């Protein structure tokens, strides 16, 4: 590189300005549509419902008040938001572990059979469907007939074993799990694809050597495969945490956040477009991004490490 620079100084000079000209449109667009709106969102979160007055204007005498942080009092302490936090935590715990575990299991097993491609294609299929489409399909799976006829698949199965039908989407406790299953159904393919690629990168010689030495497949997996692909698993986990926290469509389409299934991203939408509380909505948006930031930093760091190795 340096030898080239010495030989053609003129081109390098051009190289200082031209790249900027080239990325300037992108830079302007990104600043205008990512940096500026972020700042604007922060400012709005300190204003009242229609952004005409400071947030503290919504305070009522004798009630608890956080002054200018009044919207954050709502975003952090209101009972609906506490429900949302609890649910998001459940989503993270169950959906992230579910997708990563299933994805890893299928990737490892499919690696050993002749129909690897078919198996992977089937698991990946739901990723091609929109959240809305998936929501509609699963609403049918979970349908709870009010009369005696049970059309929904799960209840039809329950009926064949003469168990009472369950109202999957309205019964608190069960309904969150029902929604998380849809998430797992949709996103396992994502985890599987990345983990399968990582598995292919495990050096065959090491695996063969271990097997020749008489190591069982079980040991090979825990002692060799898992440690080698651990960095990839970590990134899949952080990426899934980000994805799960962003989930809004599944909840919006299937329950609308009712019956105790509220999540942060859906609450933000409802505050804005059902209650027209822009102050509260932006405060919730800020809470959402703050929750996501650690996972985001982890991923960006990893990108930059790869960058440094380039």
């Amino acid at each position: 590189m340096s030898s080239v620079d010495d030989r053609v100084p003129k081109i390098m000079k051009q190289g200082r300005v031209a790249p900027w000209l080239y990325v300037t449109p992108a830079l302007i667009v990104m600043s205008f549509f990512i940096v500026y709106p972020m700042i604007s969102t922060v400012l709005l979160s300190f204003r009242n419902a229609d952004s005409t007055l400071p947030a503290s204007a919504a305070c009522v005498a004798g009630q608890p008040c956080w002054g200018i942080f009044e919207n954050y009092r709502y975003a952090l302490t209101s009972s609906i938001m506490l429900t949302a936090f609890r649910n998001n935590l459940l989503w993270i715990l169950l959906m992230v572990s579910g997708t990563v575990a299933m994805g890893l299991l299928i990737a490892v097993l499919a690696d050993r059979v002749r129909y690897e491609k078919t198996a992977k294609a089937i698991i990946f299929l739901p990723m091609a469907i929109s959240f809305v489409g998936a929501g509609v399909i699963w609403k049918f799976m979970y349908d709870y007939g009010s009369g005696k006829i049970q059309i929904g698949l799960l209840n039809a199965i329950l009926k064949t074993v003469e168990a009472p039908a369950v109202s999957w989407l309205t019964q608190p406790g069960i309904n969150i799990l029902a929604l998380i299953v849809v998430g797992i159904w949709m996103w396992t393919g994502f985890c599987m694809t990345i983990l399968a690629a990582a598995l292919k990168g495990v050096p065959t010689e090491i695996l063969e050597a271990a097997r020749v030495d008489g190591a069982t497949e079980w040991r090979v997996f825990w002692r060799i495969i898992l440690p080698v692909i651990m960095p990839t698993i970590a990134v899949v986990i952080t990426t899934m945490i980000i994805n799960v926290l962003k989930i809004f469509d599944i909840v919006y389409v299937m329950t609308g956040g009712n019956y105790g299934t509220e999540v942060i991203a859906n609450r933000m939408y409802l505050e804005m477009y059902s209650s027209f509380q822009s102050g509260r909505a932006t405060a919730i948006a800020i809470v959402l991004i703050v929750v996501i930031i650690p996972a985001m930093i982890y991923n960006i760091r990893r990108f930059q490490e790869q960058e440094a190795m380039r």
Partner: protein
Amino acid sequence: MTANSFELAQGPAKPPRKIHWGRVAIYVVLIAAAVFYLLPVYLLIITGMKSFAEVSLARMWDLPSGLHFDSYIKAWFGKESEGIRGLSNNFMNSVYLAVPATLGSALLGSMNGYVLAKWKFRGSDVLFPLILFGMFIPYQSILIPLVQTLQRMHLYGSIPGLIFVHIVYGIPITTLIFRNYYAGIPTELVEASKIDGASFLGIYRHVLFPISMPGFVVVMIWQFQSVWNDFLFGVIVTSRPAVQPITVALNNMAGSYIVEWNVQMAGSILAALPTLLVFIFLGRYFMRGLLAGSLKG
């Protein structure tokens, strides 16, 4: 790792029966997983083919009595007498939306990717994290100011507005995929044309662009899929049913109680058809896009 070497490695040391059971277990788990992931799809397809009378408990699992496309016709054209809005118009909206949005963000992404991959310049270390940040942020955190900006630009509530939004927020991921793609192209190629006096733009147009086709395929499939399946931007930017993309229209259709399951399922298939076809015929590029954009570096 192939099935063969697995068996070979296990071969002489263990009694053959054990290997046999291990393989049975593998197949049982895989088949169970396949059933779980395919069941909703099976149900979707058979229900879409059924008439309303056929959609009942006793015949839940049965194949439809014949090929009925009535549900599809109803889902596509709607039925005014029952107050059902057809999806045809919204399907076309999604086409008018997804095609330009895909092309636009792919082109911008390839230009940015070229700069970031092949030119070292001061500030590139600011730009890159900004782009990654743009890829990960929850769009909820920019929605409200975005709507205000779109209103000021007179783009709010229209398909061009939605195209614009998808191009802008598509730039991070397309840039990243292209950057990784171009990073794999030998720098000597670029250096050689630099020495030959090719300009900055010239290198892109005559050297990199012609060999960018595989990159474009991957990026465009990825973008098409995410624009087509998007719901959040669609529901926020477009409020009039006439300009809404298909995901929003499908949700409206499914939200009304008068629409029967068979019509809803037919609608879901129609809405998923383009991405399903892309997936079936170009699945490997689809997965490649996923890998390129997701941290495989």
